[in-house]
């Protein structure tokens, strides 16, 4: 398979992720947190807070952000960046919803939308 061919992995049904909640996906590259926001959008981020590695999947999801459960940093689901005054970013991943299924980009030129 060429490097530029996008490869998406089917992960779960949208409903498997609670609304305003998250699930964690174990992957060979580490845990990825899948979030589903109040408006049905799905986001994927590495499950490691830029502060001290807290599991973001365990945080409270609000608007398009998650509050880390360990020390309360607020991380943007769009960009992976911490809300000021905190600094730092977590790697975002590409996820999409097709026919009610959540898919995660596992290979392809720009799989990580940093």
């Amino acid at each position, binding site marked *: 398979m060429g490097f530029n061919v996008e*490869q998406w*992995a*089917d*992960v*779960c049904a949208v409903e*498997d992720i*609670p*609304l*305003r*909640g998250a*699930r*964690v*996906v*174990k*992957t*060979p*590259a580490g*845990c*990825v947190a*899948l979030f589903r926001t*109040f*408006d*049905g*959008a*799905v*986001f994927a981020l590495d499950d490691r807070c830029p502060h*001290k*590695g*807290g*599991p973001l999947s*365990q*945080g*409270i*999801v*609000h*608007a*398009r952000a998650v*509050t880390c*459960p*360990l020390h*309360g940093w*607020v991380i943007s*689901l*769009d*960009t992976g960046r911490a809300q000021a005054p905190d600094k730092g970013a977590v790697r*975002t*991943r590409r996820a*999409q*919803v097709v026919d009610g299924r959540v898919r*995660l*980009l*596992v*290979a*392809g030129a720009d*799989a*990580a*939308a940093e």
Partner: protein
Amino acid sequence: MKQKLVVIGNGMAPGRALDKLFQIAPDAYDVTIFNAEPRVNYDRIMLSPVLSGEKSFEEIIIHGDAWYEKNGVTLWKGHKVVAIDREAKTARSERGVVASYDKLIVATGSLPVVIPVPGADLAGVLTYRDLDDVNAMLLAAQSGGRAVVIGGGLLGLEAAAGLKERGMDVTVLHLMPTLMERQLDEAAGHLLQKAIEARGIAVRTKANTEAILGTDPALGPPRARAVRLDDGTEIEADLVVMAVGIRPNVQLAKEAGLAVNRGVVVDAGMRTSDPDIFALGECAEFEGQCFGLVAPLYEMANVVAARLAGDPAPRFKPSALATRLKVTGVDLFSAGDFAEKPGRDEIVLRDAAQGVYKRLVIENDRIVGVVLYGDTADGAWFFQQLKDGADISDRRETLVFGPAYAGGQALDPMAAVAALPDDTEICGCNGVCKGAIETAIAQFGLTSAEEVRARTKASASCGSCAGLVEKLVALSLGDAYQADARKPICPCTTFSHEEVRRVIVGQALKSIQAVMQALEWKTSCGCAKCRPALNYYLLCAWPEEYRDDAQSRFINERAHANIQKDGTFSVVPRMWGGVTSPAELRAIADVAEKYRIPTVKVTGGQRIDLLGVKKEDLPAVWRDLNKAGLVSGHAYAKGLRTVKTCVGADWCRFGTQDSTGLGIRLEKFLWGSWTPHKVKLAVSGCPRNCAEATCKDIGVVCVDSGYEIHFAGAAGMHVKATELLCRVRTEDEVVEYVAALMQMYREQAAYLDRIYKWAEKVGVEHIRCTLTEDEAARRGYFERFVRSQKSAQIDPWARRAAGEERREFVPLELPRMERSMEIA
């Protein structure tokens, strides 16, 4: 010579295409239409007003008989086409009429989806698509009775409103948690549900239909009598309407050998895989998409007309869609899309008094989605901005107020309040007008909304005018006004914890969304600060009714274990009064070995902590602990934590009372209750105080003559000795006073205030007086506590060990194929 055009289906899409064609090329074709429905072309969209009785069928006809005559169109009413012969270029109807064509339009529309449950074919089960369905519903409604509408989307709700209007008892069943979830966000869905319920229609969400039950066949041909849900509930129904979706009607096209996916595949010129055949309307599929609203279908119609007239230029391009619900009295508009793309932002406006909710979704300084509820007057304007892709960066501040303010000077929300006449009633509950409030502010030198409330009673009852009162204070004081005199919960709102609590009770608000709407929250779903607070306040106010919102809880309370720095969890079973047994210790030891739990530690709270448990092991760990009788210790909860005790009169040579027994009794009585912050107790057997009772939230010190009850101590970041509440003689009295104190704290304190913080705010003396001098008040608190405990004392571990909230604990995995792959 004229060419022959044959149209299959006489719905709204081909109707528009022919209108257009006769306009641009009036003499190009001889037209023949076959229509399975035995009638002329009518406005399908307006069927709901016909159902509800606001319009007659005649009023919604688009093309009357005269139109066909005038344009020389042959219309075969009630003729369903059953075959297309592409070799011979003919179409044949079921009743044997054959028409030959040069060009053919397939416009067969959609078929309503029938969910394949047992009983779906019973008499009395209908769908909602055409006039025949409406007539059947009207017939059924004549005898009153009960109707169940399956499907809480646009069609289902319109059917439900119509049937209610016609005198039936109506229940709507909807599979999803909120109504019209494809067009609306959660907030608007919630408002919609309230409005639908307010007309006397019952709504059940998350309702999955399992079967439709029929009448006894011995009593004549069976017909529908009830709907059964998968949880076993049965809802009586003389009429069942399924409005769960549509599916393109493609059978005929498929049999003719045209390319068909979900719909009949067309190109941008609306051409099918056969160049002489067009497809149009809901049956057509363009670039993988089918359409179920007329706006894009009319676009298709224009393209087809142009192509038939010989103009190859126009191409179909789907644009954003807008929806309005046609139920009188419910104003709802949604357009564009608000999901599934990163990089978006929102602007929210709520007006509780007017029942208004508006939300704009912005991406790259452009509106991409609009939801309006309650006031949809600006829908068209927003939609236009959306379609134009207008850059809104320069008027972001006022955008949500609509065209009235667009581009104008920045809106001053104060100006509107300033402009109100003096006799405008501000507080409806207590009949206080604007003039009275301003006079009070001036006369008594009031500086906050709190003071205005105390002095005039304005906003003292339901609280919905609190925002207005606030603005009046600000106006009167000008620069002297200090908004932070009263601290809002968080930036999502201007209201303080106390105000929010008052309004929840005053207005009987029973969901997070209801509170956010009533108090005009500035965000659509709150934040990590306000949501847990609201969740607690609702739980405390409505212990029997409120359904806890797991997503509004901090992870520890959601997972019923404490998260640790490495993402593992700690498990602390209850050890009543700090007393344990060999069997319990053995169970703890077994669990620690079985699940390879790295650390076992005795806590500062007289119990044992198992640290480093993997999240997915939690339910199994709990199951094993449960077997030995160990339940959750709520070490993670804003709730009752520990009741520490000393050995007391049983063993100690100084012990005056059974401090251990009393501690256990208190813990068994208080466990499970949720509180604003954690609550820790201790019971010491004598004033030597070995259980450290005088630095706890609530402490009991046994003395010869009975018991001293202490409260409001602290030993964490602040160290503070307790205050004495009172002295009592019996254990029963201790239990009553302690429970009453707990409940008073539960009902009054701001979320995340420990008892000592709350006491600082309301006054130690006030608490002492209420609980010791006002017996009725004390009894009231006590009884409310007892009632709330009925729904609180359920071991959350046992539930989860039995499978509840499973997905919280089970990680997802990539499918096997991809698992080996590097995730990029």
